[in-house]
């Protein structure tokens, strides 16, 4: 992939990121942060990739640790976000 494409993607993603959260009420700040936190757990994909082609033991060890950490980040992140959001759980169906 060439640089300009990557930069374009980066710039556009920045805009999407900005726009999407620009009007969020403060009660959602923490859940949103937590959700975003879980999302960057996809580094797990990277960790798997490097683990898969790691050749030395050091690489293997480090990448296995990376996988563990990334998994904690990702799975734990989504679960804890869900728990935070429990208060919004159809407490009132009649809402609008």
């Amino acid at each position, binding site marked *: 992939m060439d640089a300009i494409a990557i930069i374009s993607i980066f710039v556009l993603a920045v805009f999407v990121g900005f726009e999407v959260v620009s009007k969020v009420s403060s009660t959602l700040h923490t859940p949103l942060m937590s959700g975003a936190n879980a999302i960057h757990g996809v*580094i797990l994909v990277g960790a798997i990739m490097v683990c898969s082609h790691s050749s030395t033991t050091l690489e293997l060890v480090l990448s296995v640790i990376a996988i563990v950490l990334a998994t904690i980040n990702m799975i734990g992140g989504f679960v804890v976000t869900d728990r935070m959001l429990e208060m919004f759980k159809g407490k009132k169906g009649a809402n609008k």
Partner: protein
Amino acid sequence: MNQSLYDLIGLAAGVCFILALKGLSHPKTARRGNIIGAIGATIATVVVFFKPPIHNLGWILSAIAVGAAIGVPAARKVQMTQMPQLVALFNGVGGGAAALVAMVEYQALGAEATTAEVIFTVFTVVVGCVSFSGSVITFMKLQELMTTRPVVFPGGRFLIAATLAAVLGSSVWVVIALGTTPLLVLAALSLLFGILFVLPVGGADVPIVISLLNAFTGLTVAASGYVLQSTLLIIAGTLVGASGTILTRLMADAMGRSLFGTLFGAFTAKPQDLAGAAEERPVRSGSPDDVAILLNYARRVVIVPGFGLAVAQAQHTVRELADLMISKGIDVAYGIHPVAGRMPGHMNVLLAEANVPYDQLAEMDEVNPTFGQTDVAIVIGANDVVNPAAQTTPGCPIYGMPILEVSHAANVIFLKRSMRPGFAGIENELLYDPKTMLLFGDAKASLTKVVSALKAL
């Protein structure tokens, strides 16, 4: 699996993440958003196994299992109040993972690495390590494993500046010299910098710093994505980086903190400044949005007006709020204490002026038994009439006076301008109760904001 298909699926996961953030920005769609995010992450993780060649599959799967075995129970069991530190920790390990991935990939690329790749690697390692160590410190602060006060020591400013310089220096060293040792030195220095960076941050600013570190981690993921040639990682990382940045600013605004002050406090703060900060009893103060959300998801709300409502002449606005809630299907009553205000019937005169239907007004004896089934009691410019001291503190001027027992409601919101007491001049313990949220400001101005926020939901 075909590379294009693989990439397309990755893009789909990216779209999931966008939708997840979008969803998480609105109360109604927040849960759904989180689930979409989880789906995206699952897709991304699963599909990576279909991109041969896959080696070390056993290791990989076991590592995932271990990670899940640690992460899920931790997330499940944590108490509501401890969630922020868990988020900090999760963020930290994410940052650590990114740094590790970059280091491994750096090893793997060896001499083949382009300068751009090296720069990105350096970036990932530095920021990932800062995020890791910084998050661990914030975790410890929040968990009260160490003091929550800003830690400032003489010469700290110089130490931190020196560390930063060292980090920059060794970054350049890595780029020029390549090799493992410089990278390890860089990692160590970055870890140190992360610690020094977070230590001087005071308790209230910690959430802001977590959010910032979260955005940092996002950027490291994006940088890894560049090195690993993964569009998905670029998109996901950038999204988190961008939204995290905005979010950090929003949080700082909502808390009335200066972002700059929070971040560069480390460089500018002098020890005596911070040591002098008065230690006050903590109260939970919220924003109009918070109040609006509490109200929006309530089934029954009791409005308790007092003298402050009259002072603010907010009778019309409170009626507007009540009407709005009623239109949303919420059960609303006004709980009128017989001596609220400064004249018998003060609240009646006031509310009649705003045309509040008489049948929404409930006397004390009528409303007290219902607080148990009340989700939110919103106390507007009242104080003595809800002060539990009347029941608990013999000898105080209001002892023996019957009160509106708002503390039986699931949530209590106080609208007042300050922590000052009411007519009787005695402190109200309820203000410090964990289930109480305070919305400071003139009652009319506050109510107007709550109404807008509630309309927007």
